[in-house]
């Protein structure tokens, strides 16, 4: 740890605090925002999330060492946490804190991107199925039934068994493609009730086409469940990525992800538990924060609570 890294870390903490206070100010202006703030864990969750995002963005400054650089293979192998290496070093004498910082970039962006794929697909399929009815709806929903029946990890195991080595973008795409079933069900149910509303009838009477009605009138009204399932979905994707990396079929090694850091450390658990402990704690913290924020959002965005 050097002064520059320490200063950058303080900067990241300050950013997170600033983000938290600004969100607080913004949220207290609306009823939904005040309902959000009524959940104490949600504020903590927001703080943790903005901290990790700040760290990921500022990784080159926050990390004191190069995450892939073997520092001193003889004397710095599997060293416990110390002042110079706050989270210790791993088997290849790399600084665990630096790897954790760069790993935040990988793990968080995989979570966000895969979730984006999943939620977009889920929203579109759900909206189309809910609005189209006739043969399209049953067809799509039966496909969703099948997708939900296969546990996601087995779907991914099958897909990964087919490609010799899965490049990272493809892995992200695959995780996204296997995660939209639940969202589409949720969106469809919402759209089914929305399509009978008067404003949809009005739009149709004004001559709006199907595409326009779905995209401009129906989907914006389904934003709440989509946002909630996105928040909860990122956490799921991060756990899944970690699991796959742990099995050795996730993020390929020199690139640090929290999952493959655990996988690297697992073989030396008894001699160097810190190499496994910290990335796992990081995952748990972020997933916990996402769950807390997701729960609070569900409460805040529930339109039925608008009157209360």
């Amino acid at each position, binding site marked *: 740890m050097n002064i520059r890294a320490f200063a950058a870390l303080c900067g990241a903490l300050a950013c997170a605090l600033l983000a938290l206070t600004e969100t607080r100010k913004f949220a207290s202006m609306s009823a939904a925002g005040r309902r959000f703030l009524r959940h104490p*864990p949600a504020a903590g969750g927001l703080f943790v999330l903005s901290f990790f995002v700040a760290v990921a963005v500022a990784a080159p400054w926050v990390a004191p060492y190069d995450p892939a650089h073997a520092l001193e293979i003889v004397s710095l192998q599997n060293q416990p946490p110390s002042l110079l290496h706050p989270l210790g070093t791993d088997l290849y004498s790399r600084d665990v804190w630096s790897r954790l910082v760069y790993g935040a970039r990988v793990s968080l962006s995989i979570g966000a991107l895969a979730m984006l794929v999943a939620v977009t697909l889920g929203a579109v399929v759900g909206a189309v199925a809910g609005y189209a009815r006739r043969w399209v709806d049953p067809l799509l929903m*039966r496909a969703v*039934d*099948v997708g*939900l*029946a*296969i*546990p*996601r*990890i*087995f*779907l991914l*195991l*099958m*897909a*990964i*068994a*087919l*490609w*010799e080595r899965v490049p990272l973008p493809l892995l992200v795409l695959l995780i996204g493609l296997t995660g939209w079933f639940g969202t589409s069900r949720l969106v469809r149910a919402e759209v089914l009730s929305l399509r009978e509303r008067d404003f949809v009838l009005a739009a149709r009477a004004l001559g709006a086409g199907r595409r326009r009605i779905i995209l401009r009138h129906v989907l914006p009204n389904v934003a709440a469940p989509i946002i909630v399932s996105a928040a909860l979905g990122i*956490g799921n994707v991060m*756990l899944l990525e*970690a*699991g796959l990396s*742990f*099995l*050795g*079929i996730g993020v390929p090694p020199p690139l640090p992800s929290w*999952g493959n850091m*655990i996988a690297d450390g*697992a073989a030396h*658990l*008894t001699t160097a*538990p810190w190499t*496994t*402990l910290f990335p*796992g704690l990081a*995952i*748990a*913290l972020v*997933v*916990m924060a996402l*769950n*807390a924020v997701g729960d609070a959002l569900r409460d805040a965005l529930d339109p039925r609570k608008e009157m209360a």
Partner: protein
Amino acid sequence: MTTWLVRRVAASIAIVFAVVTFTFLLLHLAPGQPFLPGDETPIDPRVVANLRHEFGLDQPVLVQYVKYLGALAHGNLGESFALHRPVADALADAIPNTLVLAGAALVLDLLLGLALGVYQAVHAHRLPDIGLGYATLFVGSLPTFWLALFLLLVFGEWLGWFPVGGVVDPVVHASLPWVGRVADRLWHLALPALTLGCVGAAGTARYQRAAMLDAMGHDYVRTARAKGLPEGRVVLVHTLRNALLPLITLLGLSLPFLLTGAVLVETVYAWPGMGKLAADAVFKRDYPVVLATAVTASTMVVLGSLVADVLYAVADPRIRVRA
């Protein structure tokens, strides 16, 4: 009720059939192929051709599909490429282990989750509830395999209370009397089941707490209190009975979680179940095994949700009337 049940069962069978078809197509239309000479070990192309012929891989996909379905109907899941034994045999060895693990984890999950949820609801918005709320949020967010690793480190390696892997003790198990064998199995089961059970219980507790709080707001609870019933009876009989319904839904939903967890936890604890079988097979590109485990897992999920639906109909008269 009967028509509903028949339709529900038929839908379940259709889903399993679709899963079989989908997995088969996915595996056969994909770019990777078994027995193709890799770059590190050159194999004689004639050997490859012979092997492909032996396993029927040189036939058109449609023919392979029909043959596969026919074999499946006879309980024949094909021959494993890597294990040199029928897939059905390997699965038959693995499934009981996974069921024991998942079953034990589910019991732990439900009992612990129920107890915590009720306790939290009774003490709602006070210190024990808030503390447990954070604790369950944390435990529920843990990666299962990471928790498995650290339980193994602390209780297996440092304290030595539990074995570090496997289903039975390989040395002494055979020589034990039956009581000892059961104890040996339970002793090996403890850590894996605890891992999955705790993470699951955290979710169940949050769910159960909400269901209890919801039920507590009803008039019949106030009536029970007004009658002067002791608080224990009000909570455990009048409220809990009505707050148990959502748990049935959770029961159906927990199978995918348990099977997913099993893949990772079985790998950590060297537990020879379905999940470990699948994870190992992926590396060897052992298609038939991956396919069979995926189909089996999906069948379990479909069965689980069917059972949950039937239980729900049995437990909740309102559902029965509507159906």
